[in-house]
């Protein structure tokens, strides 16, 4: 005879999508460390003018040209006598701003275009996707170089160029999500109770695309930091003496033989920063991907 056992009342807290995401994300230790590192970087970049030991552009230590790292100059001194640690700190401001602002602008415009293309379909979709095809037809950094050639060099124009370069990927991503979301029952339900197109897109479809956008956002910041630094490296972005990491590497190139340490620290700075964003993005993706929990 089988006794019917009542299910024990669950003692765990209510699982919301947010708490589920947080639980899965916190399990990924590498991504959590990367996330903490990104936060520290952002804090250091914001506080850079106050915590940098020397003036990044106007302090010259003529007694220690090309000096190797020491207690006085943590990352050494460059051939002009400037403190490399201070320059890297100030450079973090530039690179993080460039990465964040350009991707934010690209994501904003791309998401809006993707929502419209996916929701309206027809003509809107064709025009927007054709536009994306054209932007995609310029390989890699070439589009950014073309835009910089028109607008002129400098960091602001680099940010604009990288933002335009990010639009089509976000547009395609969001369009794909919108196309599949809009046929789901809950969207039809919203429509059947008389919700306007605007309400459906903003309140019901857009939240469904956020997860994909956030993951891509993080991964894209890494790429954009590299693109912006590359443009400065080939002389089209920040100009010397601005302590932008790519521009610093370009300056260091001439003295690679005598003082390789001048090139090493900006390289490490770019690598570690981009790596942190990529690891964070990977972790976010795994935490937001419903397939991963099945293993």
């Amino acid at each position, binding site marked *: 005879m089988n006794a019917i056992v009542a299910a024990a009342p669950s003692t765990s807290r209510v699982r919301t999508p947010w708490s589920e995401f947080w639980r899965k994300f916190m399990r990924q230790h590498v991504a959590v460390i990367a996330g903490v590192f990104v936060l520290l970087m952002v804090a250091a970049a914001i506080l850079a003018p106050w915590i940098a030991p020397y003036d990044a552009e106007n302090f010259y230590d003529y007694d220690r040209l090309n000096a190797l790292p020491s207690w006085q100059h943590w990352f050494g001194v460059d051939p002009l006598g400037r403190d490399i640690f201070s320059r890297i700190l100030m450079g973090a401001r530039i690179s993080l701003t460039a990465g964040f602002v350009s991707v934010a602008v690209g994501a904003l415009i791309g998401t809006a275009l993707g929502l419209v293309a996916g929701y309206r379909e027809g003509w809107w979709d064709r025009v927007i996707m054709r536009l994306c095809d054209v932007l995609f037809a310029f390989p890699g950094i070439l589009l950014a170089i073309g835009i910089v050639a028109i607008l002129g060099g400098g960091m602001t124009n680099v940010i604009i160029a990288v933002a335009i370069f990010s639009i089509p990927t976000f547009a395609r991503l969001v369009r794909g999500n919108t196309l599949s979301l809009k046929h789901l029952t809950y969207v039809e339900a919203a429509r059947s109770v008389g919700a306007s197109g605007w309400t459906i897109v903003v309140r019901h479809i857009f939240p469904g695309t956020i997860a994909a956008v956030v993951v891509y956002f993080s991964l894209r910041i890494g790429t954009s930091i590299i693109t912006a*630094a590359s443009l400065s490296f080939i002389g089209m972005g920040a100009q010397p003496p601005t302590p932008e990491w790519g521009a610093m590497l370009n300056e260091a190139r001439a003295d690679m033989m005598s003082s390789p340490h001048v090139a090493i620290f900006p390289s490490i700075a770019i690598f570690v920063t981009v790596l942190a964003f990529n690891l964070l993005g990977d972790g976010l993706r795994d935490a937001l991907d419903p397939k991963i929990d099945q293993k």
Partner: protein
Amino acid sequence: MIQYLIKRLLGLLPTLLIVGILVFLFVHLLPGDPARLAAGPDATPETVALVRADLGLDKSLPEQFIRFAGGVLRGDFGKSLRTKRPVSTEIGERFLPTLWLTVAAMAWSVTIGMVIGTLSAVWRNRWPDRLGMTLAVSGISFPAFALGMVLMQIFAVQLRWLPAIGADSWRSYILPSLTLGAAVAAIMARFTRSSFVDILQEDFVRTARAKGLTETVVVLKHGLRNALIPVVTMMGLQFGFLLGGSIVVEVVFNWPGMGRLLVDAVDQRDYPVIQALVLLFSLEFILINLIVDVLYAVINPTIRYK
């Protein structure tokens, strides 16, 4: 198949046309007067007017575009403002070094990337996977120009094994193509791994194992083939990445290719050269994607009839 090819080719025409118009308008988007740019800073107004008429800049925009498009179709991009030589000659000398560099980078990076991706998927969550994926995430995070400088410092300056700059022999190709391909190898490894992991969970793989095939046959014959389908598409996109990346790598290694020519041309506002190069880079990219799409249709018949 022929029908699919024709459909794809016709589909490219609007994109090509818009790219052409954008590249054409490029001159008019530049700040300043293109005729003055072409005539030089010290030219008198009369000379500028002559140059304007000579370049056809006094005609209406549609007329200018037809002239430009006609020239492009005949391979005539005008003269370089800097060297006064025909742009086609300038680019002709630079075309092959860039092409071979990208092909060499593509060849090694795709091969190595797919091998690492496959090994990582097969030994998922064990040390080959961890090592492979650590390498891969580092590869996408290290900027090409920094990697190029590091490689040059170690292998050319310190060890003196390989030449640092120029494109004289096959040994000159080693460092630049390593630099250029590293990120692509990393992306291919990550992509192959995720594609392979999905495939290995499919029912037909279980069936293959259930009927007693060895793991090697299951992985290579049943897994690899199917996992490669999305990887092939990815390859087309990556080629674009390489074409763009070659611009930066050519600057590092002082490579006599189209990328460095472009950087110099932008620097000196040599707009006919910029126009021709942007058009050529895009055209190459579009063509490669077409080839990849056709390859994809050959592998996967369902695409052809969609």
